[in-house]
């Protein structure tokens, strides 16, 4: 008798607990669904303008203006792409973008690696002072240097010359690049370098044959961040370059779009061409890019 009452009480408790649990579960499901809806709305807001860009790059004006902005093109008009690539100077701009971006990335990585090597692997007292000197560069607004640079490059006859762009990109990317490399260099083991010195290797040999190869992963990250910055740079190229043959995609498409001010398909195709290399890099290397952007900023 007593036992029975007890089990009944127990099972009632158990039922109550189960009910509470399922109530909690429902509440949890509802809140998770709401969260996902919010996250998805943000996601659509972030990505839809680009999808729309690709859509109208494949339409002609009539389709752009008459169909819904969400409509797929009936027959994708790839000829928009062929037309903008073959007319005008898009291929020249593209080549210049590759040239300036590539040269500046190489120089920045080499100089930043050398400086970081001196700052972390060599033994001297003032290294933190010099690190500070490099890091203050992060705070300098480019506009505060623009007029003197323009003046200097004019005097040196480097306006409308690739060198003005490549050197400027290199200098302005050094601080962030050193910042990305610095943490990695600090935790590199010293044993290999020590062994090499004992074997009589010169400093250059240590740097080029031991340290530089060991830092390949962080170099890749830093190189991609540099590539994104340089590919998209606007102020310097817009100021130092006015001759069409030296323009990059970022400023070249500006005039180019002017010529096509009413042809939305051509404008869309031009914009897609200009952003495609970075998007492709992102699709294949997104983890490295994400790593680099957070490494370059969190430690600030």
């Amino acid at each position, binding site marked *: 008798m007593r036992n029975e009452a007890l089990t009944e009480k127990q099972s009632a408790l158990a039922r109550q607990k189960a009910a509470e649990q399922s109530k909690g579960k429902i509440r949890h499901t509802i809140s998770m669904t709401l*969260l996902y809806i919010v996250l998805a709305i943000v996601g659509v807001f972030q990505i839809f303008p680009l999808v729309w860009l690709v859509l109208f790059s494949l339409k002609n004006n009539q389709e752009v203006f008459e169909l819904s902005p969400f409509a797929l093109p009936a027959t994708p008009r790839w000829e928009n792409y062929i037309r903008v690539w073959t007319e005008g100077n898009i291929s020249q701009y593209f080549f210049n973008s590759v040239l300036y971006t590539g040269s500046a990335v190489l120089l920045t990585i080499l100089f930043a690696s050398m400086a970081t090597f001196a700052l972390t692997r060599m033994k001297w007292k003032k290294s933190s002072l010099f690190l500070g000197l490099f890091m203050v560069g992060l705070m300098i*607004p480019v506009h505060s240097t623009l007029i003197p640079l323009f003046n200097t490059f004019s005097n040196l006859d480097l306006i409308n010359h690739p060198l003005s762009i490549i050197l400027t990109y290199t200098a302005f990317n050094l601080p962030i690049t050193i910042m990305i490399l610095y943490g990695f260099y600090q935790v590199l083991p010293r044993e290999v370098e020590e062994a090499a010195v*004992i074997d009589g290797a010169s400093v250059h040999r240590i740097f080029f044959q031991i340290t530089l190869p060991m830092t390949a992963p962080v170099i890749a990250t830093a190189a991609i961040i540099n590539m994104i910055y340089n590919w*998209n740079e606007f102020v310097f190229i817009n100021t130092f370059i006015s001759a069409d043959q030296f323009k990059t995609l970022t400023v070249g498409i500006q005039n180019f779009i002017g010529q096509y001010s009413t042809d939305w398909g051509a404008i869309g195709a031009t914009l897609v061409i200009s952003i495609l290399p970075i998007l492709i890099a*992102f699709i294949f290397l997104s983890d490295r890019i994400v790593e680099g952007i957070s490494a370059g900023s969190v430690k600030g």
Partner: protein
Amino acid sequence: MKGMIQMDQALSSKKMIALYLAPGLLLLLALVYIPIFQTGYFGLMDWNGIGEMTFIGLENYTLLIRDAAFWDSAWHSLLLAVFSALSLIGYLLISLVLAGKIKGANFLRKIYLVPMLLASVAIAQLWMKIYHPTNGILNTLLISIGIENPPAWLAEPSLALFAIFIPIIWQYAGFYILIYYAALKNIPESLVESAKIDGASAWDIAWKIKVPLIMNVIKVTIVLAVVGSLKYFDLIYVMTNGGPNGASEVMASYMYGQAFSRFDFGYASAIGFFLLVICLLITWLIRKVTVSDEDIQY
């Protein structure tokens, strides 16, 4: 022992240290540090960029103080800074959700980041199309839900500035979400677990444990957002060039116009120098105000 001495000698040679620092340091001095002093100096000159410079003392700087158009642009820059700093709250909320062990967080974080990868010129052109008065996607949508005369966003003096703020927020959202997400992921699991055992709600864990733990990162993002806003230029220059009638002018675009449209290089240099001083001052000020002795270590 002999090896150690050898190594110390090799790796502390002054000549070698100088050799390895020199290329980067010289470039930085020549193209960043010397120019900022030149800017201050040019600010003391009457100069059209091509002809002779005439020393006029502080005239450009006193003119700047009385230039209403400049203060309008400074006010717009300040508005952008406030707007950007406030949007950090939204980014922080999203990151707290994303870092809360939900499925697809990685994918969403990458989707959010995509606009950050695009050139400002492409973003500007894209958003000019979005805001296009008759064929843009925004007004097409507004008309389709029954709003008959939607505004011409970028041509409306009262709207242009805010219409430009939206793509700027769009552009940087993924950047800040990524920074917060990385910081939140660094918080040791054990801290959150023990709070859960003590019965803390998800809300309490977020605001009383996680946010204080990443306070240092939040301070960095406030500096980045405010200073970044004060020197912001690209989208505004391409989308409206400060117009209509100065309604979307910011400090950097005002400076650029003075130099490269009006060829008043002396006056533009004074603005450039002012911009530098203000950026360094505000960085210092924010750090000073937000630094506390009790910065939490974990």
